[in-house]
């Protein structure tokens, strides 16, 4: 294995619509921005990994084929990665595997999504369920998260105010991130009184439908050192899947309780072992977790070992993971403030890398040394995790 690192990051603003850009143009915007940051050109790219989840949102089936010529991928290895919400995280892992294997020196991981191109996004998110057993009940990503939230509340005494603390703080942090889709000062009262969507989740507990593009460029140790590029080195990766059936993740014979994210715990343990991390709260400076619903910031913090199960609600309310805390959780505002689904996992990776490249602007944690990015997909059944470090990993 060779060491790999992120040398370039490109992101577009995330908005409901981008009336000035077609799908391919969003991909170009992100890809070329990432290459510019890396001081590389399309000719330097040896392979492309394309992040795209269900294409029904953008409305062009298998839309990846449209971008090949537009980003300089013609004549090069090109593959699309799809893992539901975890797509962007899985694509980043695939980009790392490309480089770490020694097969390619520089890999572009890029994607875009237009979740608002259709008014029927929740209908599409209902179609992910089995038609015989589950689809008819209004299951979608919101009800899926609502079921988890209710169970977390029952198991750990989590309250609506805990959830409101998550959303109001996320919107406030997002004020520092010009790419964030939603941002602002919301009072706890506004959050509490917002219309309920699926109990206990109310408006501010839920992410928006976003449009945008993102890219990262990964290069090998050889290229990074030959060219003297600043890099966010990949020191650990992990991922884990579980059965699609939520009903199998409940009860005494559970395959991992649905009131938490045991799949993320598994993914993180693998990544921590590689990175030599034993005390994540002390050793990580920044965590960008894929938390599309307020409850997920709790389940992520707990699964990642930033605190014990059931502790995250109080700790978030106390500001423990706010800017300046021992570890900052979603300093960008996170997925609650922008969710271009296919690339959200890549945005987490990109925003984590920016911290180590000193490119995070107003949401920079000064001197951040080590960061983690995670992504979740399917029926909360897929989790990915990547650990980035300013220092090159020890050879192994």
């Amino acid at each position, binding site marked *: 294995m060779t060491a790999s690192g992120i040398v370039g990051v490109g992101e577009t603003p995330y908005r409901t619509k981008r009336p000035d850009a077609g799908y391919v143009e969003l991909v170009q915007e992100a890809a070329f921005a990432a290459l510019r940051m890396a001081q590389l050109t399309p000719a330097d790219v040896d392979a492309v990994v394309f992040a795209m989840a269900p294409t029904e949102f953008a409305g062009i089936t298998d839309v990846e084929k449209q971008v090949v010529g537009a980003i300089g991928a013609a004549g090069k290895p090109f593959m699309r990665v799809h893992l539901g919400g975890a797509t962007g995280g899985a694509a980043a892992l695939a980009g790392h595997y490309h480089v770490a294997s020694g097969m390619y020196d520089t890999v572009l991981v890029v994607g875009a999504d237009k979740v608002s191109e259709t008014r029927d996004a929740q209908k599409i998110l209902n179609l992910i369920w089995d038609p015989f057993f589950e689809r008819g009940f209004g299951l979608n990503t919101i009800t899926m998260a609502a079921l988890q939230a209710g169970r977390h509340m029952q198991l750990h005494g989590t309250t609506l105010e805990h959830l409101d603390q998550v959303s109001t703080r996320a919107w406030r942090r997002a004020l520092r991130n010009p790419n964030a889709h939603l941002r602002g000062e919301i009072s706890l009262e506004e959050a509490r009184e917002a219309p309920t969507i699926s109990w206990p989740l109310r408006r501010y507990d839920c992410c928006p439908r976003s449009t945008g593009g993102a890219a990262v460029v990964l290069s090998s140790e050889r290229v990074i050192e030959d060219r003297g590029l600043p890099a966010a080195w990949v020191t650990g990766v992990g991922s884990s899947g579980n059965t699609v059936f939520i009903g199998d993740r409940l*009860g005494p014979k559970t395959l991992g309780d649905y009131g938490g994210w045991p799949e993320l715990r598994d993914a993180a343990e693998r990544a921590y072992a590689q990175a030599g991390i034993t005390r994540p709260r002390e050793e990580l400076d920044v965590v960008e977790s894929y938390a599309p619903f307020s409850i997920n910031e709790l389940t992520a913090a707990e699964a990642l070992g930033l605190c014990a199960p059931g502790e995250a609600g109080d700790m978030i309310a106390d500001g423990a993971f706010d800017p300046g805390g021992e570890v900052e959780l979603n300093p960008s505002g996170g997925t609650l403030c922008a969710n271009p689904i296919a690339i959200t996992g890549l945005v987490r990776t990109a925003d984590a890398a920016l911290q180590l490249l000193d490119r995070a602007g107003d949401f920079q944690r000064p001197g951040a040394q080590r960061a983690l990015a995670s992504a979740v997909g399917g029926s909360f059944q897929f989790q990915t995790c990547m650990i980035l470090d300013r220092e090159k990993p020890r050879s192994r």
Partner: protein
Amino acid sequence: MATTESLVLPEDWHLHYDYVAGPVTTRFLRGLEQGRIEGTRSPAADVVYVPPRAYCERTFEPLDEWVEVGPEGVIEGATIVVSKFEGYRDPPFALAFVRLDGADTSLVNFVEMEIGDVEEAMARLAPGARVRAVFKDEREARITDFAYELVT
């Protein structure tokens, strides 16, 4: 971002599917038509799966032992949908994952109940609450042939 607004092209998709259920799901749905909820049992893992599986997800052995479960069971997770979504039932409505008596996994369905105050209704749907699967008179071999009702 540029200031020129792009042209917008509207289009609707209408797609028809005929989903093939396969033998295991077909047997389950035919059971519902008869007013019966059945799962498949894995003797090696000592797990009764509902929905039924052709293979145990723990031992990967084929499953051919069918057992009837329910009609009562316990709520493991629930929510009440309050906002209207296109194509779904009019809100508010409750749905729950219920571990039916004799089953080791939970099956989702509507909980038919009066919903006034949502928080009060949710308290009645807390994990551990008991429900009963109640079948409709007119059945069509679909999962909606029954719904849960709270056991009082």
